[in-house]
C-alpha cells in the first residue's frame, strides 16, 4: 500500500515524488516507457548524446536570486543552484521578414530593440510590461482571457504583437491561434524577463539528479510499467492495474499522463471527447556539424523565425509539416563554464510544426522516406534565417509526432498537452489529481513547479 502512486516519470512526477518521499511518504512512480523524462528525455545514437525536449531551461536567474520559479524549485527540492549547473544563453532572436528583435537574459536588450524597430510602440510596450508584472498567477478568472485581445488593446502595431507571440507560443502554448492571457504573462516573464540557460551535459543532468534524490529518499521508480486502468469505487480511485495485470494499491494517485489520458484510464468514465485533445505537435531535426556553429557565423542560442507578417500557430492543414515558422536552437551557443569548455560536436536543432494524424498514418516505409524528406525541407526553410550549415553536417536524426507520443503518451503527441488546463489539479475523483502539462505549467521549470505545487496542495496535507 502506497501513500501516493505517481503516473509518469517526467519532470513533474519526479519533482512531486521527491517532495512526498522527503516527507516520509511511501511513493511509487510508474513509467510506461523504458526511460525517464517524458517530453524532456534523452537518448544515445552512433556514440552521441541527444536531448529530446530541451532547447533551453527558461526562468533562468543567477545564483543567489531568492525570487522566481527557479529559486523556489531549488528550495522546495533541497537542491543547490550548482546541482543544475545552468549556463546562460549568449543571445536569441525573433526574426520576421525585414525586422528582427534580439533578446538575452537582460530585459533591457529587448526593450531597446523594440524602441529601435518600433519607436511608436515603446510606451505601449512599457504599459504591457507593467500589466504583465502586475498579473497575479493565482487569479483564475484573468487566466483564460484572450491574450490577443489584451495585446490588441495595448499595442497598435500588429507586427509587434505577432513577434511577441511567436516565441511565447512556440515554448508553451497548447491552444491554436490564441493564447490565454495568464499563460502569456507566465511565458513572457519566464522567457523575456528571466531567460534561457542550459546545463553543459543537457537535460540528463537534471533528470539524473532528480532520480538520484528520489531514490535516496526511499522512493520507488518502476520503468516499463504502464498503467492500464484506474479502478474506481464510490468516487475514489482504489488501485491501479498495470499493463501486465498487476494491481497496485495507493491512498491517492497523482497523474502526469494528461487530463483526457488519465480520465480514459478510470473505470467509471466514458470515452472523453477527442476534440478536447491538444493538436500542436512538432518534428525536430538534429544536425551534427563538423564545427561549432560560431565558426560559420551563427552566434544565436535560439532563433524563432516566421516568414510572413502573420504568425500561424496552428496544426498544418495541407501537409505533414508547416515550415512557415520554426525554431533554430544551437546548444553550443551558451556561456559554458571555462572548465567545461565547448560541446564535443556542433549541433543545430530545428523544430517545425507537424500534423500527428498524417505522421501516424504512414506505413513504416513511407515514414522513413518522409523523415528524410522533411529533414531536408525543414532545414532548407530554416537557413533563410541562419547561416547555411548544410555543407558541414556529419550526422542527422529527426524525431516526429509519433516519437513524442511514445515518450509522453500524450494524445496526438501534443507537446504542450490539451488547451484547457486544470489549474487546481482536481478531477472527478476525490483522491485522483493531475500534474504536468495539463495542470497548466509547461517547460522544464514549469513542470517541476507543477509536480511540487500539486504534491503540496493535494498529497501532503493530511
Amino acid at each position: 500500500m502506497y501513500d501516493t502512486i505517481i503516473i509518469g516519470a517526467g519532470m513533474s512526477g519526479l519533482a512531486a515524488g521527491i517532495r512526498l518521499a522527503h516527507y516520509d511518504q511511501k511513493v511509487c512512480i510508474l513509467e510506461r516507457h523504458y526511460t525517464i523524462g517524458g517530453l524532456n528525455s534523452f537518448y544515445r545514437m552512433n556514440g552521441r548524446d541527444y536531448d529530446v525536449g530541451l532547447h533551453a531551461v527558461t526562468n533562468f536567474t543567477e545564483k543567489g536570486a531568492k525570487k522566481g520559479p527557479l529559486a523556489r524549485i531549488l528550495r522546495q527540492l533541497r537542491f543547490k543552484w550548482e546541482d543544475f549547473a545552468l549556463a546562460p544563453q549568449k543571445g536569441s532572436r525573433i526574426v520576421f521578414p525585414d525586422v528582427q528583435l534580439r533578446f538575452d537574459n537582460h530585459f533591457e536588450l529587448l526593450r531597446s530593440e523594440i524602441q529601435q524597430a518600433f519607436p511608436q510602440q515603446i510606451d505601449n510596450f512599457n504599459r504591457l510590461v507593467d500589466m504583465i508584472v502586475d498579473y497575479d498567477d493565482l487569479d483564475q478568472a484573468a487566466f483564460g482571457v484572450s491574450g490577443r485581445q489584451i495585446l490588441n488593446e495595448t499595442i497598435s502595431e500588429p507586427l509587434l504583437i505577432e513577434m511577441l507571440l511567436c516565441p511565447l507560443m512556440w515554448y508553451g502554448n497548447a491552444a491554436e491561434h490564441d493564447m490565454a492571457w495568464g499563460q502569456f504573462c507566465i511565458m513572457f516573464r519566464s522567457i523575456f524577463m528571466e531567460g534561457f540557460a542550459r546545463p553543459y551535459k543537457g537535460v540528463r543532468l537534471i533528470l539524473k539528479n532528480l532520480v538520484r534524490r528520489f531514490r535516496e529518499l526511499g522512493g520507488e521508480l518502476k520503468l516499463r510499467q504502464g498503467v492500464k486502468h484506474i479502478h474506481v469505487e464510490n468516487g475514489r480511485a482504489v488501485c491501479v492495474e498495470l499493463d501486465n495485470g498487476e494491481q497496485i494499491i495507493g491512498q491517492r494517485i497523482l497523474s502526469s499522463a494528461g487530463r483526457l489520458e488519465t480520465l480514459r484510464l478510470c473505470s467509471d468514465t466514458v470515452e472523453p471527447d477527442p476534440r478536447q485533445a491538444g493538436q500542436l505537435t512538432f518534428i525536430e531535426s538534429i544536425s551534427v556539424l563538423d564545427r561549432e556553429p560560431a565558426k560559420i557565423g551563427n552566434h544565436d542560442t535560439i532563433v524563432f523565425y516566421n516568414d510572413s507578417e502573420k504568425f500561424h500557430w496552428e496544426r498544418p492543414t495541407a501537409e505533414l509539416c508547416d515550415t512557415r515558422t520554426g525554431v533554430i536552437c544551437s546548444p553550443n551557443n551558451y556561456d559554458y563554464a571555462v572548465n567545461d569548455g565547448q560541446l564535443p560536436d556542433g549541433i543545430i536543432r530545428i523544430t517545425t510544426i507537424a500534423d500527428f494524424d498524417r505522421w501516424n498514418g504512414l506505413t513504416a516505409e513511407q515514414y522513413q522516406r518522409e523523415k528524410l524528406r522533411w529533414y531536408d525541407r525543414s532545414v532548407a526553410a530554416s537557413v533563410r534565417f541562419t547561416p547555411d550549415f548544410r555543407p558541414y553536417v556529419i550526422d542527422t536524426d529527426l524525431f516526429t509526432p509519433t516519437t513524442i507520443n511514445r515518450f509522453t503518451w500524450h494524445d496526438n503527441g501534443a507537446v504542450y498537452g490539451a488547451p484547457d488546463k486544470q489549474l487546481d489539479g482536481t478531477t472527478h475523483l476525490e483522491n485522483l489529481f493531475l500534474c504536468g502539462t495539463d495542470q497548466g505549467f509547461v517547460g522544464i521549470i514549469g513542470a517541476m513547479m507543477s509536480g511540487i505545487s500539486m504534491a503540496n496542495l493535494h498529497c501532503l496535507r493530511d
Partner: protein
Amino acid sequence: MAPTEIKEVILDILSDITPDEDLSGLKDEVAFREQLELDSMDFLDIVMELRKRYRIQVPEEDYVQLASMSSTVSYLTPKMTDCVLT
C-alpha cells in the same frame, strides 16, 4: 525541550529550506517575511519539517503563530516539552 533549543531547531529548519540566506542576524521579534525571502511554500515546509522531525502537528489555522522567531518559539514550547534535540 527548552525555548533556546526550539530556536535552534527552527534555525536548523530555516537553513535547510533557505540555504542561501544568512541567518546570523535574524531578529527574534521581527516577522520572518520581513527579513527573509519566504513564500507560502516555505511556511508549509517549516510545518512539514516539524512534523517530520518531531511529530509535531501544526493545524492550518495556527500557521499565523509562525510569523516570527519569538512567536514560533512561544507557540511551540508547550507542544515540544517532551521532544529531544536530534
